[in-house]
């Protein structure tokens, strides 16, 4: 067990960055640091892929509070604002010392939701483990019949005489559910109430009997998603997060986590369009004036989006998420599709046929380009949010908003 030095937190932003960098240089394993400083990506990736070594490092990082800088000190954080936390995160990324993407649900969604709604016991049991990267989390919200209309979920939880809950249902689009230790679970507990008012939220131990994730193959050919079947799953009442039938409010906390300080400060700099331009130069497509115009156009659009991200970062100093996030998400989705198609046009033949094991990156991007216009709320839902919350237009009619859940139409 490494003895972790406390990290200093100077009030000045530049000094904070220096303090974190200096802490990282003192604490990162020597070969890791050397590879980072030499710019040797391959070695860094190899070390990070070694589960034992990564686990040891995340323990050190968590002990110092650096993995969860916005969390209160008593729960393993540093009590920093989202802005100041971003300075920390920026340094972690610079030294390739940050937690991997698959920890997103745990760090960015589960942690803050538990901080807001959890009992002292739940906080004590889960937060230190989350800060040290000892538990992987997944989200069990969407269902085959509840996508954009999430509140229509029908996975049923019935409280038994002993106080435990018996859960049956099916969830879908659950990233990493097959590897996860815990899941954020929304269930229907009062079918007689309108759909938003009969939901209860649980922290589900994914090892509980009856929890069965099955990989779901995406259109890209990958399978990072799962569908998760819940059959007679028994959950103790102590795993309930927030009051019975108020799970919708708890879920809003999860869904509105936007500025978490886990990514660096936004900047205007290299993006996906730069990579396409580089590719266009390599394939010779850059010589085509029509493609050049479309590439520069995409470049301009991506930079304008980055500028918008900086603007909202500066404006939302409080860290409160806003409907403006929908503006950026919609713009990102549009750009992603534009770039996905454009990429394949830079090497028209290579994008439809290739030698074994040499699938071009453009094909991956093309097949993944629809991700952002669907995941995390479709572009149509984002447009509704912008129209209603930014422009003050009437809310989309939901004829069943006040209908008891069990009496609503199905389809």
């Amino acid at each position: 067990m490494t003895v972790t030095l406390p990290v200093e937190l100077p009030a000045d932003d530049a000094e904070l960055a220096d303090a974190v960098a200096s802490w990282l240089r003192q604490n990162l394993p020597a070969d890791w640091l050397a590879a980072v400083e030499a710019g040797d990506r391959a070695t860094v990736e190899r070390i990070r892929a070694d589960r034992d070594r990564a686990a040891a490092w995340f323990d050190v990082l968590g002990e110092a509070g650096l993995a969860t800088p916005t969390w209160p000190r008593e729960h393993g954080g540093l009590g920093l604002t989202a802005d100041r936390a971003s300075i920390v995160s920026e340094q972690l990324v610079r030294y390739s010392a940050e937690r991997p993407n698959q920890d997103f649900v745990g760090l960015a969604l589960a942690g803050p939701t538990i901080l807001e709604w959890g009992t002292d016991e739940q906080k004590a049991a889960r937060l230190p483990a989350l800060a040290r990267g000892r538990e992987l989390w997944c989200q069990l919200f969407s269902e085959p019949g509840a996508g954009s209309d999430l509140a229509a979920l029908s996975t049923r939880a019935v409280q038994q005489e002993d106080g435990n809950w018996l859960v049956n249902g099916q969830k879908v689009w659950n990233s990493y559910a097959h590897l996860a230790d815990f899941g954020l679970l929304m269930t229907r507990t009062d079918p007689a109430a309108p759909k938003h008012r009969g939901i209860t939220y649980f922290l589900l131990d994914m090892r509980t009997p009856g929890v069965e994730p099955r990989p779901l193959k995406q259109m890209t050919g990958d399978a990072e998603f799962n569908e998760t079947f819940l059959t007679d799953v028994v959950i103790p009442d102590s795993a309930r997060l927030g009051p019975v039938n108020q799970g919708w409010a708890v879920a809003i906390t999860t869904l509105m986590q936007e500025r978490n300080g886990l990514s660096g400060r936004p900047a205007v700099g290299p993006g996906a369009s730069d990579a396409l331009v580089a590719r266009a130069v390599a394939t010779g497509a850059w010589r085509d004036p029509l493609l050049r115009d479309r590439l520069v156009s995409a470049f301009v659009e991506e930079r304008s989006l980055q500028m918008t991200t900086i603007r909202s970062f500066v404006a939302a100093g409080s860290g409160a998420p806003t409907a403006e996030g929908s503006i950026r998400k919609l713009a990102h989705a549009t750009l992603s599709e534009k770039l996905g198609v454009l990429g394949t046009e830079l090497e028209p033949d290579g994008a439809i046929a290739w030698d074994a094991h040499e699938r071009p990156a453009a094909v991956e991007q093309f097949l993944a380009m629809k991700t952002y216009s669907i995941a995390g709320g479709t572009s149509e839902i984002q447009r509704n949010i912008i129209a209603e919350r930014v422009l003050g237009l009437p809310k989309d009619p939901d004829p069943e908003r006040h209908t008891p859940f069990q009496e609503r139409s199905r389809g």
Partner: protein
Amino acid sequence: MSRVDFLFMCRWGPLSDVRLTPPSHSLTLCPVYAEQRDPEFGWTGEHRQLRETVRGLLAERAPVSRSRELAESGARHDAALYSALAEQVGLQGLALPERFGGYGGTLLDLAIVAEEMGRVLYGGPFFPTVALAAPALMASADEEACAEYLPRIADGSVTATLAVVEGSGVWSPDDVLTVADAGGRLTGAKFPVLDGVDADLLVVAARGPEGISLYVVEGGAEGLQRSALEILDGTRRMGRVTFDATPARRIGAPGHGWAAVTQAREVASVLMAAEQVGAMAACVELTAEYARTRRQFGRLIGSFQGVKHRLADMAVRLEMSRSAAYWAAWQDPGTEEFAFGAGTARSFCSEACLQTGQDTIQLHGGIGFTWEHDAHLYLRRARADMTVLGTPAQVRAELETTVLAAAAELEPTVATHSIEVPA
């Protein structure tokens, strides 16, 4: 006390007769505008106060109905308001150095003013004078000429414009065919020139013995002919200007005219982008208001997703444009970042503004297609703006070098790869 301090203290009521005497001593020596030190998008109370003041003033003296009235009557502008803007608020000299009679503000301050002007389609000589001619004079680095002309621009007694294009619409040195002889006499034609018929001073790019230089032609000069053109956007008149051995004063170093034109064009691009943001904001507000009040089929049309979604897309375009315009306004003129920001803002905002004009008419339906409705005024302005400083496509072609440099940073092979683009 800076102009902004003054504005901060003096809320706009009825036009006050306070007259400020700019400090006579020179405090700063800056190439074009004062350096903007605050981090991007860090709005200050002074910025907000400036915006409120200008908005209040324009709402009172120059609402869009006034812009329409002037355009329909073919008037150049409201001369009394122009003088008031200079004498009592100091907007013409807001961003000019104090040694030239200005208030030493930043380009960002001026962008805020431009946005508010764009909102109400305020036109006339303000943009050609303040956004084109003044920056060109500053960029010429000709202290003597600046000292002679800029104080008069700042106090509103002189209007000016910049004459560059000659019918091709392309801002390129190759397209400058107007010539200057050894004695500084110009021969050639410039069109369309913003406020070309009436501007007191014409700053002209012409080809002299040492290459392209800037020349100042006085309105009454011999051999100068000016004729009005029919115009798409009635709020900013344009003319054809011809020179026939017209006497002119060369400003700045000989042969350095195009560099000054480029710098002035970058400044104008940022200010025009800010104007476009204002125009788009007005369109989005107008359309959202209509969607919140117009009923069909027993419901507000704003409850139909066909309407909501188009409006949401308009809001996205507006916010992205605002970011691009103000990111650029926050960079220091003369830097690579500024040039890049100006091009980005120009390309993005011009196209966004045109689409916003189209969508505004679309969502208003039949009423939006009438002469009486303001929507077509915004569409006309948007289309005219697209060409005035070079088309967005030209701007993107100019950005190619920057884009390649950015890609090379990501993928070093780009730099070594031979990139030959056929002309």
